């Protein structure tokens, strides 16, 4: 099933009313959408865990969506929140290879761009964005990231710490 805004919103409204069939279809579509959403922004070894954590968050917080509002910006806010939380808990990803999947909302590129993780990361100063991308997403060590960026090791650590803190305050920013 195609994960477009109108379909997802309709399924979610039915799910809030307790329709299990609609909910199964919704979660399946969200699972695929989330894989695209997180692709290249999390180590492949962590992708399954993060998608599942987000589905659980969607389940427990499903009352926080209002049928009068769009669905994908709500789901993306939850996904970003779980993503930042995941990065904060992650010490080091052990794989460097990245998935090449596409976003599940190709038919709505404007919305997809506004709610994407790239957009969120792009709000950070370049040095913080780079440190987080290299260490927390691509899984380089602090020393490797320092070498790659020309920053000192302690500066890489500071940039990661400050960047993650800033991200946590900007989850809902476009």
């Amino acid at each position, binding site marked *: 099933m195609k994960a477009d805004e109108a379909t997802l919103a309709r399924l979610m409204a039915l*799910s*809030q*009313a*307790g329709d*299990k069939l609609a*909910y*199964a279809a919704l*979660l*399946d579509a969200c*699972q695929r959408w989330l894989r695209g959403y997180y692709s290249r922004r999390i180590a492949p070894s962590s992708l*399954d*865990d993060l*998608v*599942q*954590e987000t*589905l*659980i*968050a969607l*389940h*427990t*917080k*499903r*009352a*926080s*969506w*209002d*049928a009068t*509002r*769009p669905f994908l*910006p*709500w789901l*993306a*806010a*939850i996904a*970003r*929140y779980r993503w930042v939380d995941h990065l904060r808990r992650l010490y080091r990803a052990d794989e460097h290879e990245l998935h090449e999947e596409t976003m599940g909302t190709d038919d709505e590129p404007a919305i997809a761009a*506004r*709610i994407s993780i790239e957009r969120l990361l792009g709000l950070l100063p370049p040095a913080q964005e780079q440190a987080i991308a290299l260490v927390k997403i691509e899984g380089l060590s602090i020393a490797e990231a320092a070498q790659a960026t020309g920053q000192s090791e302690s500066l890489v650590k500071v940039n990661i710490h400050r960047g993650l803190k800033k991200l*946590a*305050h900007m*989850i*809902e*920013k*476009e």
Partner: protein
Amino acid sequence: MTMHRSSDALIAELVGGLEPVRPLRFGEGLGLALAAAGLSAVVVITLFGLRPDWLAGSVNPMHLVATGLYFGLALAATVTVVVMSRPQIGSDHTGWRWAAAMAALLPLAGLIVGLSGGEDMLSAENVRHGAACFAVGGTASLLVFAMLTVWLRRGAPTDPDRAGLVAGVAAGAFGIFAFSLHCPDNDIVHIGVWHSAVVLVMAGLGRAVLPRLIRW
């Protein structure tokens, strides 16, 4: 959290446990907060009585302006908290800051007048009276504070630190609004220092305590 099951198994489990939910409505959140604030005001008036000038039908302008500013701040902060409980990329959570900047005139004016030597801010009588207002105003904040905590726990605030801070501001401002309906003191130093202290302390309490209660 480490997962070991497949996503399909997880989805089956979540679908199996699905119960109908009542979506969080903006109007309901705001209405509950206003009801809690109204109840707090009624309790304060019942226990301590309404200001004498209200009963006499001639209201002091300083009291009106200050109480109105606290009410405006409380309302703006409450709206922000309710908005924060329903995550949405593109939501703005900054509106309350303008109300806070306006209300900040009260402590600022109070400190300027107090420090410029108009009166003894630290006299035993002033401190005793101020501390009493602070204690009752703080206590009158607690119902709104609890209500907003419950609301945020039902919702999904993506910035728990800020949500805690703003909920504290809302509760403190409603608390001192309620007590202002009793407190007969129209002095800007008393209002600016002691009444504003309730908002500041509740904001600090919200920032310190709420994030761990509302994180998800």
